[in-house]
Each structure stands twice: as structure tokens, then as C-alpha cells.
């Protein structure tokens, strides 16, 4: 009875502290929404008018058809023709184009005689993200070309194998990929920051000591920090979800129940990280720095911007302790792929583990400081 009364008092106190002051009220509402819009538009890897050149050594009708297919797409912009390896190197080096399509001399003959042709794409790899995206577009154009060629020539199979396929996002809109992931990224930042700052504020103002001399135990104090922050986090996730669904118009495929269950556990893990940060910071300034110490690697290693599979093996192992990695995958799986509880289980249990580890560690650290 008393324990419940005390925890309710802590929760109300925490919520009042956040919402009564105009500045802290602003920081939990405005930045997440603002970032949702800014990242939603700015952090898009969509290609528009990517310039490409062609080294056509064949000049057959098939090659001409392929080139005109590419020119017809509004992704690529035809920049001209080159005719030597040196020219290819030159135009990529000075960023005149980002891709050169090389069509070998025997392309038409191989296609008609053996039903099998090969083209080569030379891509400016300096920007791996756009290059990767460009290749995906290219392969989709080729596969479209394949379909037509096979139908016209009654071939049993595709003359050129399309290696890269894009599921769930047939229009190649990277916004579909990024925006749902942002729900995880933004709430993670807010949860760590809110928790770490609220503990640091109490430390700075001496109210933490005041709490510790009351009959409240460390677990109650931790619960008093978790519950209100979790409520705020669920509110923010909902706001972000509404922006994704209705502003960006990304259709929601899965179950809201499953998504909120996953989000709840992810938010607890984030709060745990925030408490973990707070155990080794004494001031609000240190809490702020501590938050970004965790936030930046978490964001980079989450797979949201760089695919985890394209990271070095050692770094891939480090991503295993990143709660955002699981959250981004989980949100994609529920939002875009309509996975159920079974489907997201591989993401769910690591999040539970992270939440349990950080929360227990923080409770222990609180307890140890007093004993």
C-alpha cells in the first residue's frame, strides 16, 4: 500500500517536473516532431537525376533498348557516351557521372544465340549509400528489360539474372525504410536524455539525498523514474507513428498491439541505458555528454543508415549490444512486413536482456552507493 502510494507520488512528481516548466515541456514535444520531419525529408537516399554515361561497344538493338529504358526512368539522367577505359575513369573521377554502363561488343550476339547477355556497371563508390541505391535501380531496370525481352523472344528464363531484388518497397522509396526507423531513433535519444537528466537534476539540487533518506528504497526510486519516462516515450512514439502514417503516408501493415509491446520493451531498455549513464554522471552537463557518448554509436550501429552486413565483422558484433539495432528491425518487421509476436521474437529477447541488465545494474549501483 505504502509502496504503491510512494511510487504514484514519485510518478506524479516526475511528470509535474517535466510538464510544468515550459522549457522542459518544449524539449519533449518539439524536437522529436521536428526531427521526424527533417530526417524524414532530408535523410533520404532516394536518387533523382543521377547522371550516367554509356560505353556501348555493341550498338545493337538490345543495347539501344536498354539505354533508352534507363533514359526513360526519372532516376537516371543520360550524360553522354564514352569510348575508352581512360574516358570512363576520367568522367567518374571528376564526378561528371556517378555510373557508367558498359555494354560489351558481343552483347547482342550472345543474347540472341545463347539467350544470355552481360552488362557491366561501373559505379562511383565514394558514396556507398547512393551507389548502392543506384545499383538497385539499375538492377530493377535490367529486370524489367529482361521480362520484356523474354516475352518477346519466348525464352525459358531471364537472359540476365537480376541479383538484387527489393521486397516490401517496390517503389524504392527509402523514406519507407527510414521514417519508421526514426520512431526508434528519436525515442531512444529522448529516453536516455530524459532519464539521465532527471537523475542528474535531482543530484545537483540535492533532492536525491532527500529521497534517499525517506523510507523509499532504490527499487522504488528507479520505478519512479521508469514509469513516467515510459509514459512520455509511448506518447512520443505515438506522435512519430502518426507522422509516419499520415504525413508521409506510409501504410501500416502489422498489428498495433505487437508494435506497442515491442516499443514498450525497447523504451524500457532505453530508460535502462539512461539510468546507466546517470550512475556515472554527477551534473546535468555530464549527463548531456554521457547521453551523446551512447547515442552517436547507437545511431550509427543501428543499421538505419548503413546496412549492418556491410560493416566489418568486429563492428557487426558490437551492434549486438545496440538496442536501436533491434528496435529498427522490429519496427520494420511490424510496420512494413506485418510480423507477429513470433516473428519479432529474435528482436524482442535481446531488448529484454538489455532492459534487465541496465535496470538491475542501475539499481545495484544506487544500492551500493549507500552501503
Amino acid at each position, binding site marked *: *500500500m505504502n509502496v504503491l502510494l510512494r511510487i504514484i507520488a514519485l510518478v506524479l512528481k516526475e511528470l509535474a517536473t517535466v510538464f510544468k516548466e515550459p522549457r522542459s515541456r518544449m524539449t519533449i514535444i518539439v524536437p522529436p516532431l521536428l526531427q521526424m520531419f527533417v530526417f524524414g525529408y532530408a535523410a533520404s537516399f532516394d536518387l533523382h537525376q543521377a547522371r550516367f554515361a554509356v560505353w556501348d561497344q555493341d550498338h545493337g538493338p538490345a543495347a539501344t533498348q536498354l539505354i533508352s529504358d534507363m533514359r526513360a526512368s526519372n532516376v537516371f539522367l543520360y550524360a553522354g557516351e564514352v569510348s575508352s577505359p581512360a574516358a570512363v575513369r576520367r568522367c567518374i573521377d571528376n564526378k561528371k557521372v556517378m555510373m557508367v554502363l558498359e555494354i560489351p561488343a558481343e552483347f547482342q550476339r550472345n543474347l540472341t544465340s545463347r539467350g544470355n547477355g552481360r552488362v557491366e556497371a561501373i559505379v562511383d563508390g565514394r558514396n556507398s549509400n547512393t551507389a548502392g541505391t543506384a545499383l538497385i535501380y539499375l538492377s530493377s531496370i535490367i529486370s524489367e528489360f529482361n521480362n520484356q525481352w523474354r516475352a518477346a523472344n519466348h525464352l525459358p528464363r531471364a537472359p540476365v539474372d537480376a541479383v538484387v531484388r527489393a521486397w516490401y518497397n517496390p517503389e524504392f522509396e527509402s523514406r519507407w525504410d527510414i521514417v519508421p526507423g526514426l520512431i526508434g531513433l528519436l525515442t531512444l535519444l529522448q529516453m536516455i536524455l530524459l532519464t539521465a537528466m532527471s537523475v542528474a537534476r535531482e543530484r545537483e539540487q540535492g533532492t536525491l*539525498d532527500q529521497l534517499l533518506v525517506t523510507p523509499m528504497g532504490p527499487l522504488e526510486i528507479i520505478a519512479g523514474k521508469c514509469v513516467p519516462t515510459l509514459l512520455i516515450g509511448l506518447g512520443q512514439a505515438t506522435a512519430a507513428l502518426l507522422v509516419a502514417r499520415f504525413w508521409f503516408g506510409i501504410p501500416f501493415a502489422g498489428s498495433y498491439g505487437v508494435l506497442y509491446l515491442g516499443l514498450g520493451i525497447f523504451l524500457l531498455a532505453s530508460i535502462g541505458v539512461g539510468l546507466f549513464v546517470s550512475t556515472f554522471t554527477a551534473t546535468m552537463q555530464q549527463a548531456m555528454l554521457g547521453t551523446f557518448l551512447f547515442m552517436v554509436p547507437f545511431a550509427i550501429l543501428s543499421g538505419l543508415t548503413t546496412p549492418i552486413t556491410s560493416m566489418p565483422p568486429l563492428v557487426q558484433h558490437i551492434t549486438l549490444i545496440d538496442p536501436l539495432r533491434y528496435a529498427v528491425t522490429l519496427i520494420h518487421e511490424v510496420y512494413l512486413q506485418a510480423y507477429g509476436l513470433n516473428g519479432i521474437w529474435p528482436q524482442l529477447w535481446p531488448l529484454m536482456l538489455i532492459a534487465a541488465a541496465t535496470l538491475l545494474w542501475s539499481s545495484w549501483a544506487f544500492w551500493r552507493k549507500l*552501503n
Partner: protein
Amino acid sequence: MNIADASTAKLRCAHVHRSFRRKNGSMLRAVVDVSLVARPGTVTALVGPDGAGKTTLLRMITALITPDQGSIEVAGLNVVKSPAAVQAMVGYMPQRFGLYEDLTVEENLNLYADLHGVRPGDRAAIYEPLMKMTALAPFMHRLAGRLSGGMKQKLGLACTLVRTPELLVLDEPTVGVDPVSRRELWEIITRLVGDNGLTVLMSTPYLDEADRCDAALVLYEGRVISDGPPKAMRDLAAGRVFRVSPPVGQTPRYMQARLMAQPGIVDAVPEGGQVRCVTATGSQTVNPLANLMPQAAVPRFEDGFMITLPQKPHTDSSANAADHKTPPDKTPVHNSNKNQTSNPAASQDPVVEVHDLVRRFGEFIAVNHVSFTVRRREIFGLLGPNGAGKSTTFRMLCGLLPPTSGTLRVAGVDARRAGAAARQRLGYVAQKFSLYGHLTMAGNLAFFASAYGLHGRKRRERLAWAIEEFGLADYLQILSGAAPGGYKQRLAMACALLHEPELLFLDEPTSGVDPLARREFWQLINTLAECGVTVVVTTHFMEEAEYCDRLIILNNGRILAQGSPAEVRRHATAKGSQPPTMEDAFIAIVEASAAAAGGKA
């Protein structure tokens, strides 16, 4: 102030105003219509509690902020028009001494010499007398952060003196510094003024320091409430200051509380086992102390100051009801079912037992083999300068910090294993009255009521009690962060007493509080002790030891003396007719232990 004064003055402030915008948009009038003149070769004191406007005024004089209205001239130069020239002439020591803790003593001096453009060739000749005067010569290569509070203060002063300033401005140079260092600093200032004709302006919360100055300005809430030589203030109290001895079996603080409440008495403080009283009228009329065999005492600045203040509530309660200086009409009643006894003698039953307590922070020993016992119903004081180990000991008592070694029993329970039940029995008021600033006064009360598990009728009763006894009714909907200082203190006390603790811990409750509020506060503590609460209190005001039943004096982590105020005072010998003060005792004990250490070596 006459024209001749103004023309030769080192400092002249005329009708200076300065306001700040608070976060909530309202204006804080930090300095209101302050005028002052400092003549060459004098020491002027700015006296007042925290928030009186002392630092704001000093920062305007040193051209760090500009006044909204009025003019300030240093040696004839206007600070607003030529701030750089003024800063080149003024030596300024901010609070916390303005030192770089990660630099050595010598590097700090060099830095200040560089900043003031002192040529390297001249430095040795300048440093030598400074180091001699401050006795810092053996510590030239020690990091400033590792000096004691008193040494930091002297180094801070030396840094401002690397070139001779026209005006030396010191912001609270003696706060929280031990009595020995405080005495040494005053010797240095007196010598600088006497030998070099330096002009000094310093701020202080200690009224006794005003007695040592040539002029004293008392500031309160930004306004000058008295101005002039301290002698004028002392003369106000001439023939009105007496000492009376308590009857056998009565403590001085018990008698003091009764006298303070008596009409015709302006001030009463326990001192040297007696009570020092200031009567409302001169001795030619009937002395309210006549039947107590009063002995006349030498008036001090503080006595005159208390006479000038608006009077106590029992003579004028309605007019000041809304003023936060005024104590509640009734003294707070705690545990009202318990009988109030006329003899509040402590029982022998120990409530706090500390044995051989040690706390280290790395190499540093903050608390060094400390043992003491607090008995039920007594007021127990932990006294000492900043850095003496008071707060560390205090935090260990409250279970906020584990000891390195030693045993510590609070209310019969090992403080290391004090569970919720044990904590339910104690109340704690932190330094600076730690409250939730974003919650209203009512919100804070409700939160702490829940924290202590109060509910139902009991909760309503206790909240009503707190609101009434601490006079909080008109302030309940104000955010506690925006409440006046006096109300923060009241709210903090109310929150700590909601659950009727039997043991109350108070950490520096009177630091930075004006003299009237301090007396009010001690009156409240008295009442609580009489109602059966054991009170453990820390303070750096040595004279406040007189309010305690027993006390320990800490310095450098060790107990210098312990016992009743009378027992501790016995360490010092009387100076003439005046009995020794706690401060005399502290100095005598430090000197005796230094002599003993010297004898052994």
C-alpha cells in the same frame, strides 16, 4: 557624505540601481538606490544575508555588470565609461577566491601577474612580501586545489595584490573559513591598510566583522538599511546590553528562548554560558531584567543592528504578517500530544552512537577516527570550517555515504543497514533546502507526505499542521523555486517534520540567512527539542555552538574538542572581563595542538 569626501574618495556610488529579469519574467530588484563613499585608507564592509545585493553591487563596482541607474566612480573614473581603466586599478577577489585549482600556487600568481602585465623581472620582489605575509612560501609548488580553505583564501588575496590596486574589492572572503585563518586574514588586511594606505571594500554575512571596519553598510533586499561608522551602531545600544546567568538547572538556550519572547527585550542570544540581552529602552527606565541580576556588557555592532530592525512579532504581528522575515505567530508545536517539560534535560539514552568513524576519498582522509554520542532529546552540534569533515560525517549519519571503517548506530540501527523503518524515524533538511523547484509549495508537501507513507486522516492532519505552523497558507500555489528564501527554509523544515521524526538532521540551516531569521530558526529548534525531538545540526557559525546542549568541533577531519559549550570554552582563557567565545576556544585549541606537535618534533 560631503563634497570634500566625494572628491578625495577612492570609490563613490550615487543612487545605484540594478534589476534582473527572473525566469518567470518578473523583475528582481537586486540593488535599489545604493549610495556609498569609501575614503582612502579605510575598510568598508557591505553586510547582509544571501540575496541582499552585495555581490551585484561589487560586480558593478568592478565594471563586470553595468548599473541601470546611478553613477559609480573609482578613483574619479566612471566605471561605465572606462571599464578597462577601472579594472586595471581594482583588485577583485570573487567568492570561492577565483583560483585555478589545477595550477600550482606559483602558476596562479604568475597567471595573475601576466594578466596585470607585471614584468617577469619585477615578480620575485613582489611575490616575496606577499608570500611572507600569507605564509604560503613553503607551498609554492602545491596545486591550489589541494590547499586548505584558509590557504586558498590567502592565495586568492595574494593574487589580487600582484600589483598594488587603488581599491581592493573582496567578496565574502571569510565565509566558511576557520577562525584561525579568519583572524590571520584580518591581520593582513589591517596591515595593508595601515602600512600601504590601501582602500578596501569587502562583503560579509558576519555582523561581527562590521565592528572591525571604518564604515559599514547594511544591505537588506537590495536596499541600504544602515550606513555609517560601526561606532554609531554600537552607541545605539549603549546602556542597553546586559548579561544574565540562567538559574541552576536551566540551560542558557532555554532561558534565551524565554527572554526572546518577553516584551521589552529586543534581542537575546546565549553566549559564554550566559544570555546576552538587548533591552528595548535605555537603563534609565525600568530594566525588564532587573530581577535577574543583569551585568552590563560592552555593546557590539550586532546589538545596535538588532535595535534598528523592525520589531519582533509579539509587539507588531499584524503589520508584518505578510513579510517573510516575520516568524510564525505561534511557535510550531510538534508531537502536540507529548508533554512540554520546563526542564529539557537530555536523557542518557543514546540515539546516535559513532565509534572510530573513518572516511577516505582516495588518499584524502575526510573523517579521521571520529567518535561521539548523541543522547535523546538533545541539540547536538557539528561545528567546524568548510572542509573540516562536517558534511561527510553528516552524510554518513544519514546513511547517504558508507563509512570506510568504524561503527555508526542511528536510532539503535546500524546506519549502513538502515531500512525503510529506520528512515521513517528521521527527518533531514539538506543545505540549500533541497526541494522540487518546479512543484508548488503544496506539491512539495503532498509529495513528501506520500514519501513518508502518510494517507487518510493522518495525512490531512499533518498537512494542515504544517501549513498552519509554518505560515504557508498564502504561498501554497507558488512554485517553491520562486518562493522567497525564508519560505524555502520553512517549507524544507515542514517537509522534514511531516512524519513526526524523533531525530532531525539539519545541514547548515543558517548559512546565508539574515540574523533575525537565524534567531527565529533557533527558536524553532528549541521548541522541537523541548517536545522530545533529538536534533543534530551542522554550522560554521562558531557562536551558534551556544545553542547546542553538546557539540563537537571538527577541523581537518579530526575532533578538536567535544562536550557542552561550557566544557569546550574551558579550553580558552578569559580576556579581561569578557568570558571566552567559541571562536577563542577554537583558536586556543588549534594553537595548543600545533604547539604540542611542534614540541614532539
